[in-house]
Each structure stands twice: as C-alpha cells, then as structure tokens.
C-alpha cells in the first residue's frame, strides 16, 4: 500500500478534496493518454506493415503517403484546382442542401403536426417516399440538373428532409397539452400557439435531427460529386480512384472527416446558446 492513497484518520477536509481533485485529473490524463496511444499504435502499425509489404501499399496506402498527398494538394493544388476550392464547393453544396432540407422539413413537419387533416391525407405518401432508398435519386438529379452544384444540393435536400420532417412532426404532435391549453386560455390565437408554444417545444426534437442530418447533407453532396461533377471532394475521391491513387482516396476521406467534425462542433455550440432555458444535464450544472 502506498502511503498517499490511504487517508489518515483526522485528516483535514481540504486535503481530502484536493486528493479527490488529483484523482479526477489523473483519470482524465489516463483517458486522453490512452486515446493518443491507441491512435499512434494503429497508425504506426499501418505504416510499418505497409512498408514491410505485409499489407499491399498499393491498395491500402500508408499514413505517410496520405499525409504527403494532403500536403501536396494543399501546397500545389489538385488536378481540379486548389484544395480549398474543392472543400468550399462540397461544403457549399452540403450547407445549401442542408438549409433547404431543414427548412422544408421543419415547415412541413410543424404544419402537418398541427393540421390533422393534412397529416391524414399526406401521411401514407410521405411514408412511401421515405421508403425509397433516396441515394438512387442522385443519378436522376444529375440528369435533371447537370454537373453543377444544383444536382448535389438536390441529393442533399432529399436526404436531409426526411429525418428533420419526422422529428418536427413528432415534436409538434407531442407538445404538452397543458401548455397549449394554458396559452389558449391566456388568449393566444392558433397562429400564436404554433409560433410561441409548438415551435419552441419542438426545437429540442428538431435539434436532435439537425446533427444527424448534416452528416446526410455531406453524404448527398459527396455522392453527387462522385457520380459526376466539375469540382468538389467527391470528385477528388473519384479522380484518385480512377488513377488507382489509394492515398488520394484516403486523404480526401480524412479531409471530409475533419470538415464534418468542425461543423458538428459549430452546431453543438449553437445548440448550447439556444437552449439556455433548459435545465443543465446532470453533472454539467453551471
């Protein structure tokens, strides 16, 4: 037994609190350290095995080659133009598709959630549309809208719309009856009930779908670019694949992952600002 793990009887409360804080800090360090270690081990193994040709570097590439590829793109640009332009294109398509899909999903979801008649009439059709694997629409959109961003935006919209729609619909349906009744008694018109009771209470439902749906928007944009485009990260993947450049495919993937994580972080930040009225979750109390 080490002497500093056992609190001696009659020890001051201050030292005990300090010991607890130290233990918590140590645990955090251990978790973070293990994470980094795991990454280093995996990357190192990949590199070593590829260099030793245990795994085929032509198919699986290696971390150093991927890194070189990213640097090469960043410094000298890609075959389609600068790397930043490709990232911007993909992001632009995904964001535009996301905003349009979210807007349509929220508006329609809330409307159908509030107007029972419309929900009963349109419900089955929406279910049928939702059952179609919507990614197969990407080639159709390419034919309709051409190689430009419009076809990618359209694929992003159809992917984003449904999860947002269903959540907004559910959110509008599950509004606390008491709150609605209270608002009506206090004198709120139907429009006011929708704007000031239904929408605020549905926001937490909607926000859950926003996280997932941004990922969908990126998928829509990338798949659209992959099928046919003049610019974008998806085209980068397709072009690398066409020249059997495995490192290029992985590099584009890595860039995408970073982009997705950054936007996710922004979304979480916005959510925190918007939901100040909600009780903090257990353990994160102010």
């Amino acid at each position, binding site marked *: 037994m080490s002497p500093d793990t056992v609190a001696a009887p009659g020890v001051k409360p201050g030292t005990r609190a300090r010991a607890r804080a130290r233990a918590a800090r140590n645990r955090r360090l251990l978790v973070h350290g293990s994470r980094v270690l795991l990454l280093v081990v995996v990357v190192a193994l990949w590199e070593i095995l590829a260099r030793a040709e245990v795994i085929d570097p032509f198919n699986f590439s290696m971390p150093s080659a991927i890194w070189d590829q990213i640097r090469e793109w960043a410094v000298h640009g890609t075959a389609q133009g600068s790397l930043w332009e490709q990232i911007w294109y993909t992001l632009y398509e995904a964001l535009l598709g996301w905003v349009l899909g979210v807007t349509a999903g929220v508006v329609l979801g809330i409307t159908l959630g509030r107007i029972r008649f419309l929900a009963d009439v349109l419900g089955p059709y929406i279910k049928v549309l939702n059952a179609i694997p919507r990614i197969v629409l990407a080639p159709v959109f390419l034919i309709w809208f051409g190689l430009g961003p419009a076809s990618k935006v359209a694929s992003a919209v159809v992917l984003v719309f449904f999860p947002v729609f269903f959540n907004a619909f559910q959110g509008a349906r599950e509004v606390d009856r*008491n709150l609605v*009744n209270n608002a009506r*008694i206090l004198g709120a018109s139907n429009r006011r009930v929708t704007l000031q009771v239904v929408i605020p209470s549905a926001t937490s439902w909607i926000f859950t779908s926003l996280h997932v749906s941004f990922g969908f928007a990126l998928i829509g944009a990338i798949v659209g670019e992959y099928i046919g485009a003049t610019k974008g990260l998806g085209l980068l993947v397709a072009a690398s694949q066409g020249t059997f450049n495995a490192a290029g495919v992985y590099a584009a993937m890595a860039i995408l992952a970073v982009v997705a994580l950054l936007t996710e972080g922004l979304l979480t930040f916005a959510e925190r600002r918007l939901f100040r009225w909600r009780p903090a979750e257990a353990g994160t109390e102010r």
Partner: protein
Amino acid sequence: MNTDTSPAIELRGAGKAFRTPSGTLHTAVRELDLTVGQGEFVAVVGPTGCGKSTTLTLVSGLEEPTDGEVLVAGEPVEGIGDKVGFVFQQDAVFPWRTVLSNVMAGPRFRGVAKAEAKEMARAWLARVGLSAFEDRYPHQLSGGQRKRVALAATFVNDPRILLMDEPFSALDVQTRALMSDELLDLWSGTGASVVFVTHDLEESIALADRVVVMTAGPATVKRIFDIDLPRPRKVESVRLEPRFIEIYREIWESLGEEVRITRERGAADVA
C-alpha cells in the same frame, strides 16, 4: 344587458361524454346543475378521478358539453372566453420563457403593447414576491415559486372567472398552506368568481364560500354546503376552529360515502 344580475357561471343539466380509444362512450359528468354567483368562491370536492376537472374545462370553453348548457355571465359558452383564467394542476408555465416573459404572455397574447405588458407583469410579480426572480427560467425555481408565476400569469389578465384545477396538489403541505393564503389575498378585492377543484376537503373548506360535493363517477352534484366561516381567513389557523371541525364532519359524512364507492370499484377492478 343582463350581465350585472345574472350569475357568473351557470351549469344547466350539463354533461360530457368522451369517446375512448376503444370506441366506447365514457361519461365523465352528467346532469350538472350549479350556479356560481359573482365574486363567489366555490370549491368542488369529490373522489379522485370522478370528473371534477371536466367541469372546469366545460366552463373554460376548452371542451363543449355533450348535454345541457353552460353559461358564463348569462351567455352560452362558445370557445374560450377572454374573462376566464385557468390555473392547471401540472406546471403550465412556458419553460423557454423567463419568469417576466411568462407573466407578460397573457397581455401580449391579448394585444397589449410590450412596455405596458411589462409594467403589468412587474406589478403582479411584486405581489407574489418574485420581483428578484424575473430573469430566471422556470427550471431554476422551486415548485412553489413556479406556482406563483402561474398565479401571477393568470391574475395579470384580470379574469372575472378563475378556474383552478387542484392547483396546489403537487406542493408539499407547508407550501400548500402558504399558497392558499396567498391565493385568498390575491383574490380578495378582484371580485372574481372562483371555482376551485380539489380532492382535499380541508383545503376546500378553508378557502371557499360554498363546497360542492360530487358523486363517484360519472359525477354529478350530490350536495352543496355553505361555509359560514368569517373572512379574512388564515388557512393554518382556521382549520383549528371548532366550527371548521363541525363543518368538516358534516361534509365528510356526505363525501366519505362517495370515496368508499370509488374505492370499492377500484378494488373490484383489481380483482
């Protein structure tokens, strides 16, 4: 104009039946006859789940009667009237609005200008003792404080008719007594008529001018008792007076029977 002479609320043979999800008809209340005078405080007691709350939703206009008539100030109820205030059993404050904004909601919904609504809301918050909390969100308040917000939000609309559906049942005993006193204080001088639904007989006697005993469901009026305790009352002390205990015994004789019937039914359902 007969609004000055007609009673504040009149139920004439009113009944309400709901269609249950399984398709059968469930009668919540039947053949209700009740008159509430202007400025009168009426408490409605009955066994749990007998349909007391339905009476309130009929008067408020949230639901329509399937039988009979409901009149407010001599006029049949059509939709939600602007003279009605309703305090709900569960929390019905808007969690995404601050305390001040919650109390402003009523006047704002009714088209009062923002500055004026704010002034009115501040005045009522001061009366319920929550001036220091106007920027808080409901989740940062205690249950009693939230109820105060609900009271202020209701009174700020200056309701002529105040409907209360077991408003204090979720509070602990001490807070409940305190809130009851506060309610009497807020109500006195407004001239509003009150219908206060509760399953707590003590509470109903301490608060009301008349106590209406309902039968086991489907509920109807069984008997009405006049409470001749002098006002102003203090809830904590009035219940120790001999007259209070006398009234309590008298009403319990009537109410207890219905409670027993309800209990036996419950037991039969379980068996």
